[in-house]
């Protein structure tokens, strides 16, 4: 767990750096949210499905997505399993059941309910897990999803990573509800509030919800209360809407620091081991970046595939014209 948390933090820092250097176009960090990322994904089985959002690189890693596949996506190169079709951090990895996401906030939440329905229908033991931010709870699909999940009692776990902001809008302006978790009550199932900066607490809460879903107990809404320590994305400047004091306050609650202190105290981690681990992770990332940068961009005609199962006549025409005459 700890190693994954370090990996996400380093990954975030490195990717932001790449963005600043113009080597990738866009990135959404999860600094401060590593406990949610790792603790949230940890209890899931390999066959479980995750409907993710754009801050979930950490979950991808836990689910077995390679660093290279993440970096390939950010670079939109020919090795990206998504064929370079989407802007950065719009991951999709079928092998790991990390479902491809769209930019419009919240559409995936209700899709997760459909997948959970299908799993139940097929009598599979699959649990469907979906992540989203506090901002997404204002979208219609959040409401529809919880409503449908309650009505159909399907094996789905809603995981709200409440990082206090939706770009610049603070949580207090997102809803007049005391918190997100209590919203579950209105839909007829349990909502759970958890300290999102405590990886073990997140793990425990998620594990309980996942077990419940798997054994036919229906949906749960988890709200993990955390803080987005960085900007919303590589294009955002958080100083415009929040004070340095506030950020300092949360910095003291840094989930990695907390977990490190815990592990050290329990004698599970020495300073030396910690340093070695950090170095190893750093090296891994640097190596992967070098590899990914060698991969060319997708071939031009790949623009026309996957719109449909087969290329229709008019796309064939457009593709041929592009090949013949150039762009």
């Amino acid at each position: 767990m700890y190693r994954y948390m370090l990996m996400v933090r380093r990954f975030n820092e490195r990717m932001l750096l790449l963005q600043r250097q113009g080597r990738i176009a866009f990135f959404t960090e999860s600094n401060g949210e590593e406990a949610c990322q790792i603790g949230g994904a940890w209890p899931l089985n390999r066959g479980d499905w995750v409907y993710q959002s754009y801050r979930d690189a950490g979950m991808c890693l836990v689910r077995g997505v390679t660093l290279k596949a993440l970096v390939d996506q950010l670079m939109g190169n020919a090795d990206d399993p998504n064929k370079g079709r989407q802007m950065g951090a719009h991951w999709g990895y079928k092998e790991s059941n990390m479902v491809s996401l769209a930019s419009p906030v919240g559409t995936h939440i209700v899709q997760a309910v459909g997948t959970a329905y299908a799993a139940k229908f097929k009598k599979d033991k699959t649990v469907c897990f979906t992540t989203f931010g506090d901002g997404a709870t204002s979208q219609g699909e959040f409401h529809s999803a919880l409503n449908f999940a309650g009505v159909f009692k399907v094996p789905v776990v809603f995981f709200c990573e409440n990082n206090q902001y939706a770009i610049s809008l603070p949580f207090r302006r997102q809803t007049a509800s005391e918190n997100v978790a209590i919203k579950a009550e209105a839909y007829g199932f349990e909502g759970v509030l958890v300290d999102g900066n405590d990886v073990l607490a997140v793990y425990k809460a998620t594990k309980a919800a996942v077990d419940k879903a798997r054994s036919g107990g229906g949906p749960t809404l988890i709200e993990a209360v955390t803080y987005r320590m960085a900007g919303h994305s590589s294009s955002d400047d958080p100083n415009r809407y929040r004070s340095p004091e506030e950020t300092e306050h949360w910095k003291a609650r840094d989930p990695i620091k907390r977990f490190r202190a815990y592990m050290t105290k329990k004698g599970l981690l020495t300073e030396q081991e910690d340093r070695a681990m950090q170095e190893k992770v750093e090296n891994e990332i640097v190596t992967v970046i070098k590899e990914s940068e060698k991969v060319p961009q997708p071939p031009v005609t790949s623009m026309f595939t996957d719109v449909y199962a087969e290329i229709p006549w008019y796309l064939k025409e457009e593709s041929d014209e592009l090949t013949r005459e150039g762009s």
Partner: protein
Amino acid sequence: MPSLNMVQAVNGTLRDEMRRNGNMVLLGEDIGRNGGVFRATEGLLDEFGPERVVDTPLSEDGIIGMAIGMALYGLQPVAEIQFLDFIYPAFNQIVSDLAKFRYRSGGQYPVRMVVRTPYGGGIKGGLYHSQSTEAYFTHTPGLVVLTPSNPYDAKGLLVSAMRSPDPVIFLEPKRLYRTIKQEVPAEDYSIPIGKASLVQEGDNVTLITWGPMVQTCREAVALAGRENIRVELIDLRSLLPFDLETILASVEKTGRVVIAHEAAKISGFGGEISAQISERAMDSLRAPILRVAGYDTPFPYALEKVYLPSPERILRSIRKAYNY
């Protein structure tokens, strides 16, 4: 061969495919116990049970979003939206997700599902039970858009839709649900996606239409016949992809084109057909391409009959093209 109306054809086709394919599920508002407000799913709950014929809460984004999630996991949902006019809460699901899943994931996550929905005017439904907004969907790469105009085609196209690897918007002209009866073979058959139907041959003017307007156009063709104008009537059936070959072959023959649809004229799908023809068959054209369409207003209630293109209005355009 049983003689069926369009609702019966849709109903029977759904039932046959449900029997054939255990992964097929239906979902929508009032489709179970009530059999759908137009009765298209009548009797299916009894035969297939509430897990496969799912009455959902009143939420279109919920219906389409849920269906997408089902489809990704390997079910084959056919979602019913009660009226096309109410699809907009799900527009985001359709345009942002349904149409783009395959593409954006590099082919990892294709979505195979059908959205059935009644559309068009003629039932005194006013603004919100009458519209023909097919162009919203034909303007969305990734979707297939089909619309039958008779019971026989309804079955053949719906079969193709349900077996298509791509997401299909299946538009059912509600005004024709019960007005035409036709022999519909009980055995399995399908009509290929992207193939128009040549309803009537003629060599003076090409009349292109689809869905509910096909019947109106038939009347216009008959009226034109009395004036010795031989009209070739094409029912597109498949709007996206559309059958350019059939269109161009006809235009080469006639050199004169009228396009008729119920939807408002500006940015209607007729504009696309017109543009395709003028880009490719300019040399064959002997008259400007004319469109007969709904007026560019919201769909009126009291003046519905005036709004909908009539056989006489279509005839006037046929004459104009012919005499140009």
